[in-house]
């Protein structure tokens, strides 16, 4: 053992339950088939701070040890007598170690010495002992797959007699060198190679543009004493700024679109401008014409903002963090959340108060049992890691996770999609200024606040702009520290209210390069002194300091006169603030290290020099076919018989095959059970309950409600404060499978799904009356596979791009139809995973994340039935639209008739619903979506155990009536005394289905036959014990 470092080990006392050890043993057996015997878990703290023996012992026993639970071992690795193997899990150099830092905090308090917590003196590790003597390869596998991630952890394993310790020694070696990169005179091939080798993620044309720029300014640079070729830092800055992640080059491209079926051709001059920005401008015009001027900030700054009332703004942002989550699911998700939190926090002047988080996740099948590709993580592991990241990211920040969605599809097995959304509230005025404006003048200081800079996250922006393969860089992984960010957040809230900050921005993708680069466009330039940037450890090159994406950092613009007060507040609140330069107006971004130039770039070239892409799109309707479906009466039971086009189904349903073996026949009741237990419909309770969904005490509609706490809800509702009943509804619309039939209908459907969820809980469409002030704020998030055509590597690129165009067209149409504005959005364009010659691409996916004002949260509506004898209605119309349904999915069929949104009819219905809610006519309301009417009816019984007796009308086949996923529909209940008024109000838009019953039975009849008969307890049991809760596991008291 190193003489200068000491070790403290905490072990559970005999008789104390080792829950962690037990879970490791169970998981090793269940997931890896490894018999470990008992596992003992212990905590290790390595102290590299000079302490006496007595101080070490006292620190260990008084500060680290829980006297009830632990025993302490000093400078030894103590273990039970029966153990044979060990696994040590340490962190790699520079990886965030909150536990070590906390211990260091405690040591400083204990010694009453100021102990700089930014330099690491204590390192936390876990040391496990296993009863069985396992070979090193098995131990290493256990360590890498269950205990940590080789991207962030260092493992030592082996027989217990030879325990090797490891303590990271970060940094050292590299000097503050700035190199130039030869560019002028390079050939095309050399340019492409340079971009790939250095992970610039720039294509040939972009590289040429950079080269030509430097060729053209040779004389100027020479005159200024600068090298002819760009410096490494300059090229990095250009690469970050021009990355797809930051510049949205494909959304800004010229697209030549052709419809192969009709021969129609047209050109799109920027998807963003044509379908998103212009559509929102038109909506804003209509809103303003009708006295609704609540749209304050759209498509600029870190998040969009709308006005709640004369005092406050609602700020709303949703982003993705897909690539990092594929490599390190926990780290990817937690930094996704914390990073997205920083967007509303740093909008305008900054200092919004976070109100809620929401998350939408897309994973491969967690029960996948095939062979994984190189460096591909198992979908179950991605799921569990991401879930834990969201738990820690939200819970430890004190931001409630109020709702979300999880979508499973095998095509997300390469790259998962991790969407993180955050809503926040900001005063309209901060210290007398408009809070949403960003103002900077030359000579204002640049302050970096929060965490320090390390090598973590270098190249995140460019990395997320390329597809993943087996060589993806480890440095792109970052670990979030919620506690560091919470401190910075508390500080920002106070400092902005005291008028100490002129404006702020988040250090996310691209790090300082991106945040200062963007802020500098306001004043017209900046000088950055990189030697002042506080580092986690030495050994970073200047360009690395400038582009590092180390987390939990903000860049602030501060008037020189406010500096003293600001720095004093930082000291009081223990938030590190560093003056790293100042803004200028000379048109250049000037980066220096110890006075020497590291980069000097013309701002105009940096922000507007990127060449526009020209892309090709070609749409062809897929050849799709409906399987034959027949309803057959089998004695008292009704059977649905499907003739699958797809052979896969037969084996799975073998026991349900009919005599002639061409059809699969299943009782209608069984179909409902199967749907409730299917991956995309079953309960997510085990996930939801591990998120704090009600911290802040303002969550009015939570993800699960009712007396049972198991009735799923449509939109979340959160009140803004404790002084009024105003609040906001939050919903998410995402329907990737429909995109296999038509991406237009998929996108339109997802938009409608999010709207109708908000309508279901009692939200009203915007702009229905003059000056109603009923804000809506929507974020669009496109996640698509590589859609740039290449005959060799991406032969169907034109079709993929055509799908994207159609998704955008639907977005424009939906926005116009409902008069609902987009306020912010993001696109993630390369969601492909390549390894071993195989490519896994996500299906083109769009998520619409919606928020809408709720005037009085006390009048909102939940989905569960409220009282026996209430009358059950279907609102809206069902069409012959089983295409893409969960019902067809049970039979591995896609079908052809994709559900369409009929915007006019939908809008009329939603308007009627708003009026009905004003009169209090609706007692419960549940949106009809995955699984159709049958599933919606079943779910509405889950809150209390009421039943329902339902009679389906004549007309469409019962398979369609029960399971079609036609849009813009609801199951609503009405008190008996309101039935007349309700029916008069809705007219033909409401179909009376039956009544709520006391008897806990769901009975559905059609034409005199009972087609579904089931106990609601059994239905809820099936739903609750579905695959998601089985995989994540239910809570239960472990055996001692």
């Amino acid at each position, binding site marked *: 053992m190193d003489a200068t470092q000491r070790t403290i080990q905490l072990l559970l006392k005999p008789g104390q*339950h080792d*829950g*962690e050890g037990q*879970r490791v043993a169970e998981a090793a057996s269940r997931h890896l088939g490894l018999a470990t015997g008992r596992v003992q878990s212990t905590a290790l703290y390595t102290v590299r701070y000079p302490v006496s023996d007595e101080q070490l012992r006292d620190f260990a026993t008084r*500060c680290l040890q*829980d006297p*009830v*639970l632990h025993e302490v071992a000093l400078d030894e690795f103590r273990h039970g007598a029966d153990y044979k193997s060990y696994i040590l899990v340490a962190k790699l150099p520079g990886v965030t170690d*909150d*536990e070590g*830092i*906390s*211990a260091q*905090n*405690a040591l400083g*308090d*204990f010694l*009453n010495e100021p102990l700089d917590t930014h330099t690491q003196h204590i390192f*936390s590790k876990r040391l496990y002992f296993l009863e069985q003597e396992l070979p090193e390869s098995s131990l290493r596998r256990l360590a890498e797959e269950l205990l940590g991630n080789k991207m962030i952890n260092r493992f030592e394993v082996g027989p217990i007699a030879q325990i090797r310790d490891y303590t990271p020694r970060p940094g050292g070696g590299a000097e503050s060198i700035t190199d130039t990169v030869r560019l002028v005179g390079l050939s095309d091939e050399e340019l492409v190679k340079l971009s790939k080798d250095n992970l610039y993620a720039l294509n040939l044309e972009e590289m040429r543009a950079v080269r030509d720029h430097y060729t053209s300014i040779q004389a100027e640079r020479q005159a200024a004493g600068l090298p002819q070729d760009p410096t490494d830092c300059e090229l990095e800055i250009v690469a970050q700024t021009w990355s797809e992640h930051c510049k949205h080059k494909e959304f800004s491209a010229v697209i030549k679109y052709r419809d192969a079926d009709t021969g129609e051709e047209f050109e799109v001059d920027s998807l963003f401008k044509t379908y998103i920005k212009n559509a929102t401008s038109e909506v804003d015009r209509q809103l303003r014409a009708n006295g609704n001027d609540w749209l304050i900030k759209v498509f600029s700054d870190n998040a969009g903002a709308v006005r709640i009332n004369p005092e406050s703004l609602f700020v709303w942002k949703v982003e993705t963090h897909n690539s990092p989550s594929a490599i390190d699911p926990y780290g990817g998700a937690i930094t996704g959340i914390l990073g997205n939190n920083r967007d509303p926090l740093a909008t305008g002047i900054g200092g919004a108060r976070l109100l809620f988080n929401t998350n939408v996740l897309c994973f491969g099948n967690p029960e996948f049992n095939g062979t994984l590709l190189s460096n591909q993580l198992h979908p179950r592991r991605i799921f569990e890691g991401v879930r834990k990241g969201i*738990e820690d990211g939200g*819970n*430890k920040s*004190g931001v409630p996770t109020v709702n979300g969605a999880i979508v499973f599809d095998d095509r997300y097995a390469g790259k998962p999609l991790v969407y993180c959304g955050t809503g926040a509230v900001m005063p309209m005025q901060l210290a007398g200024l408009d809070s949403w404006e960003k103002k900077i003048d030359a000579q204002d200081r640049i302050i970096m606040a929060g965490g320090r800079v390390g090598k973590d996250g270098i190249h995140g922006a460019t990395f997320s702009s390329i597809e993943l393969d087996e060589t993806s860089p480890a440095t792109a992984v970052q670990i979030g*520290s919620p*506690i560091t960010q*919470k*401190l910075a957040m*508390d500080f920002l809230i106070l400092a902005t209210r005291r008028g100490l900050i002129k404006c702020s921005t988040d250090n996310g993708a691209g790090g300082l390069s991106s945040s200062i680069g963007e802020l500098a466009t306001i004043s017209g330039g900046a000088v950055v002194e990189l030697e002042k940037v506080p580092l986690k450890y030495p050994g970073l090159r200047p360009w690395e300091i400038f582009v590092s994406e180390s987390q939990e950092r903000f860049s602030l613009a501060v008037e020189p006169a406010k500096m003293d007060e600001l720095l004093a507040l930082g000291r*009081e*609140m*223990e938030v590190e603030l560093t003056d790293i330069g100042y803004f200028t107006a000379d048109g250049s971004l000037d980066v220096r290290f110890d006075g020497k130039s590291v980069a000097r770039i013309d701002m105009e070239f940096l922000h507007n020099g990127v060449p526009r892409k020209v892309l090709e799109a070609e749409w062809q309707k897929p050849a799709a076919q409906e399987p034959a479906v027949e309803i057959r009466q089998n004695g008292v039971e009704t059977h649905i018989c499907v003739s699958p086009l797809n052979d896969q189904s037969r084996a799975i349903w073998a026991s349900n095959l009919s005599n002639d073996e061409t059809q699969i026949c299943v009782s209608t009741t069984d179909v409902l059970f199967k749907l409730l237990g299917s991956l995309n419909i079953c309960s997510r309770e085990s996930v939801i*309950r*591990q*998120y*704090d969904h*009600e*911290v*802040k*005490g*303002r*969550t009015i509609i*939570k993800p*699960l*409600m*009712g*007396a049972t*706490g198991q009735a799923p809800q449509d939109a979340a509702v959160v009140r803004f404060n*404790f002084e009024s009943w105003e609040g906001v509804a939050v919903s998410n619309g995402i329907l990737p499978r429909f995109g296999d039939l038509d991406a237009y209908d998929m996108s339109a459907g997802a938009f409608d799904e999010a709207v109708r969820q908000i309508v279901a809980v009692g939200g009203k469409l915007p702009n229905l009356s003059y000056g109603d002030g009923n804000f809506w704020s929507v974020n669009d998030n496109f996640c698509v596979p590589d859609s740039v055509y290449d005959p060799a590597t991406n032969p169907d690129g034109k079709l993929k791009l055509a799908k994207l165009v159609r998704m955008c067209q639907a977005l424009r149409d939906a926005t116009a139809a409902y008069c609902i504005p987009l306020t912010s959005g993001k696109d993630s364009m390369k969601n492909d995973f390549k390894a071993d010659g195989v490519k896994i691409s996500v299906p083109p996916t769009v998520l619409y994340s919606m928020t809408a004002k709720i005037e009085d*949260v*006390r009048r909102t509506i*939940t989905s569960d039935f*409220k*009282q026996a004898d209430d009358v059950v209605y279907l609102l809206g119309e069902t069409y012959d639209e089983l295409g893409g349904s969960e019902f067809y999915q049970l039979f591995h069929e896609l079908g052809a008739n994709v559900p369409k949104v009929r915007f006019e009819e939908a809008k009329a219905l939603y308007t009627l619903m708003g009026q009905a809610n004003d009169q209090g006519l609706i007692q*419960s309301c549940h949106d009809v979506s995955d699984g159709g009417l049958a599933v919606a009816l079943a779910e509405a019984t889950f*809150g*209390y155990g009421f039943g329902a007796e339902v009679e389906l009308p004549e007309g469409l086949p019962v398979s369609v009536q029960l399971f079609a996923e036609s849009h813009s529909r609801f199951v609503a209940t009405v008190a008996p005394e309101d039935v007349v008024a309700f029916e008069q109000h809705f007219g033909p838009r409401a179909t009376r289905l039956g009544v709520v019953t006391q008897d806990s039975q769901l009975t559905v009849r059609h034409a005199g036959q009972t087609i579904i008969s089931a106990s609601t307890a059994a239905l809820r049991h099936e739903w609750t014990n579905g695959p998601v809760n089985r995989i994540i596991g239910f*809570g*239960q*008291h*472990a055996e001692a």
Partner: protein
Amino acid sequence: MEGQQPRTTTQQPVQALILTGFGINCEEEYAAAYRLAGAEATIVHLNEVMHGHVSIHDYDILNFPGGFSFGDDLGSGVVLANKLRYRKNAAGRTLLDDIREFIANGKFVMGICNGFQVLVKLGLLPNLGGDVTPEVTLTHNASGRYEDRWVRLKVNPKSNSPFLKGIDSLEVPVRHGEGRLIIKGEETLAEIEARGLNCLAYTDYDGSPTDVYPHNPNGADLNCAGLTDTTGQVFGLMPHPEAFLSLYNHPDWARRKRQNPGLSEEGDGLKLFRNIVEHVQGQRQTVPQEASQFSS
């Protein structure tokens, strides 16, 4: 004795001090609870107290909210408790010294969730020996996981704490991963029970204390959800009463309201805060002389 509070009069509102900073995150709803109960609530960063800018002695009730103080990395509440116990101010006093004096002055201390964990790790609860040595601990739930779910609590009729006066039972959410109370030794356990310091118990639907999951969400000894010290002035609990201030926090509010349109819009949790605010007001009205004796 140092740090005397100014003499209060009956006209002044009851003053609640709510600490925040370093990962505490339930301070806003905590303050709302006191305001709804008629008190004045002040939220201050812990360092303002540590550095002597704010004195706890100017307040009637000192409150430790929930959250993840210092990330809970060393065990929940540990680092914060450690800071209060060891970090000395310029005058060489720790905040624990001040808190002990505050309690000796007849004032009240409350901790919720992470705040309760701090009071336990600090030895202020249950403090049977009177020397603030930890006698019990709160550790990982028996389920091994963090959970947010609603539970029913029964108030121990033996409890002497003014926080719980007149309350038999209440519903509240738990939101924790380390709420399992473990009591060291049979003697300690017997004394806690004998003195009624286990003031709150998790119960089943019928109101009987239970160790069955999920009614008892963490497997606590004595099915215990909250503790007081022997004076009843120091009170802590794992569940969140400040998260049930209005009817509309409850997961079943919509059905209950339908069943009973006249249902009160106040949540169960608010009762605790009304209790302590009324108690402090009552103390001032009935025994102003006695209250002043405590302070010297």
